[in-house]
């Protein structure tokens, strides 16, 4: 039994890393623009599907991954320019609906480009399982874990140590004040969408050898990433990472110990419980509403 639990934990952390990356993307955009981007899951799907398509077109895997990521970044920038910017100052409900519309639109594009079939990438370094204590780990899981740790460190360093990162944070705290000290808020917004799309695409490419991707793959991933961001307290990037890991482990434990069919329900029951008892997430700030 302890061995089985250890196995669940390993699998859960792999799944959770993915949710953490998607959640991080949510937090980035939310911080810069107060918008929850419901198309975040579609960035993940686009990254995976584009990499798969480029690979089968004959590009080597590393090049396919880079091109797919850049293409998704371009989509993120276009989304900001043509859907978010024109609706500046819209209500929360309006921006939610706009990004849901964008998500459906991107799904529609993927459907036209790649059809309804499921695709996957070959593992980056073979698929011989590695034994680790009593559990087995796929080499791809190690890629996911390693890359997540790296990306989280990069994002953290970016916000804490670089001028650009601090400027982005300043926009999150107070847009008018940021503008007043000479930060180009418009450019910062685009930066946030580009970064977030890139993060999403990388997550999609990392996970593509483990799960199958299709034009619909982003829906559940996006929702889980959003859950991670909400559980962690929206706008708190490290909270989103913690929320993602927690959600992944819980989900795998629930699937293993209770029922695999109910795993999505278990994840969302947990999210609802968190919201009912901590309405601003586990690591969120309690902010007084401005009247």
């Amino acid at each position, binding site marked *: 039994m302890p061995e089985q639990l250890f196995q669940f934990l390993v699998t859960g952390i792999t799944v959770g890393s993915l949710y953490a990356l998607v959640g991080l993307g949510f937090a980035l955009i939310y911080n810069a623009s107060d918008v929850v981007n419901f198309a975040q899951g579609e960035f993940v799907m686009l990254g995976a599907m584009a990499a798969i398509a480029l690979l089968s077109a004959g590009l080597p895997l590393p090049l396919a991954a880079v091109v797919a990521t850049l293409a998704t970044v371009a989509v993120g920038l276009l989304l900001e320019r043509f859907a978010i910017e024109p*609706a500046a100052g819209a209500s929360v409900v309006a921006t939610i609906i706009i990004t*849901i519309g*964008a998500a459906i639109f991107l*799904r529609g594009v993927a459907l036209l480009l790649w059809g309804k079939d499921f695709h996957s990438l070959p593992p980056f370094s073979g698929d011989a399982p590695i034994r680790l204590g009593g559990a087995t780990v796929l080499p791809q899981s190690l890629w996911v874990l390693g890359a997540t740790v790296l990306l989280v460190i990069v994002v953290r360093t970016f916000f804490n140590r670089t001028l650009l990162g601090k400027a982005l944070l300043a926009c999150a705290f107070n847009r008018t004040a940021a503008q007043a000290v000479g930060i180009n808020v418009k450019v910062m917004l685009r930066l946030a969408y580009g970064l977030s799309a890139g993060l999403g695409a990388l997550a999609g490419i990392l996970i593509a050898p483990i799960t199958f991707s299709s034009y619909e793959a982003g829906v559940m991933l996006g929702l889980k990433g959003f859950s991670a961001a909400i559980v962690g307290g*929206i706008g708190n990037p490290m909270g989103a990472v913690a929320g993602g890991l927690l959600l992944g482990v819980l989900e795998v434990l629930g699937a293993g110990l209770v029922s695999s069919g109910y795993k999505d329900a278990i994840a969302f029951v947990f999210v*609802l419980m968190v919201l009912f008892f901590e309405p*601003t997430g586990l690591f969120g700030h309690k902010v007084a509403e401005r009247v």
Partner: protein
Amino acid sequence: MMRLAGLYALAAAVVVLPILWPDNYFVIVVGASAGLHVILAVGLNLLMGYAGQISLGHAAFFGLGAYTSAILSTRFGWPSLAALVASLLAVGVLAWLFARPILRLRGHYLAMATLGFGIIVHVVLVQATQWTGGPDGLSGIPPLNLLGWPVDGDLQWYGVIMAAMLLVLWLSLNLVDSQVGRALRAVHGSEFAAQMMGVDTGRAKTQVFVVSALFAAFAGSLFAHQQAFVSPDSFNLIVSVELVTMVVLGGMASTFGAACGAIALTFLQQGLVVFEDYEMLIHGALLMAVMIFLPQGLFVGLHQAAGRWWRASSRRL
């Protein structure tokens, strides 16, 4: 009189259309489907448009209404009318229990909670196979029996659904103009200010949440008996988003706007069936475009534009 003029006009149209085009698929069958969508959209609009509370899981109440009715009438042999009433009661109680903790949340947290609720209900419908029939759904649901008159055949169903739709519209129009309706609009404007004026905002929000869920359950129960078959796919996240689209398309905070949005989207979907692969593309683009360029909704926007034009031209005369 003027307040309900739109309702009378719609009632007249509902009667005249099948006389002009009897046996027309688009009037009788698609029309009935549009009627159910109107009930759903008008209910959701009370919550979104008037109280300003987003719900991305409204299909859950639609599904719970449908399945309660379906399970009671097939597995327990309840008469269909009793099953309908029981499904309203069950969903009403459930909505009332959920209202307080859910409506305490705001903005994105509320969106998350309603989304989560919708997904949980959908997962349960798929997984609780011994009750719901799982992904294959439940079939053999008996038609509605209104005190000895079985509702059988497309034209009869058209009549029943249209009557239900007009009833819901009438209730909604009256609710909006009642004290509760004014309290709701105050909540939408500023919840804090409403509280300062002595509005029990928690109570007002709970009431509208329950009413909105009841409308959805009503539509669900009618849908189950009309189709004689239910499956989880009719109540998933996509349906919740479509319902939001109807409300937004027509114009939030307008009962007739929501109704027009529901009718327009129903017929649009019928038309788009031909372009199956492009349906998503068009649906997504439509949502974005309406929200960016006409945030008050297509019908409300056009209505206001027409009003301006009318005033301008009458001034010239």
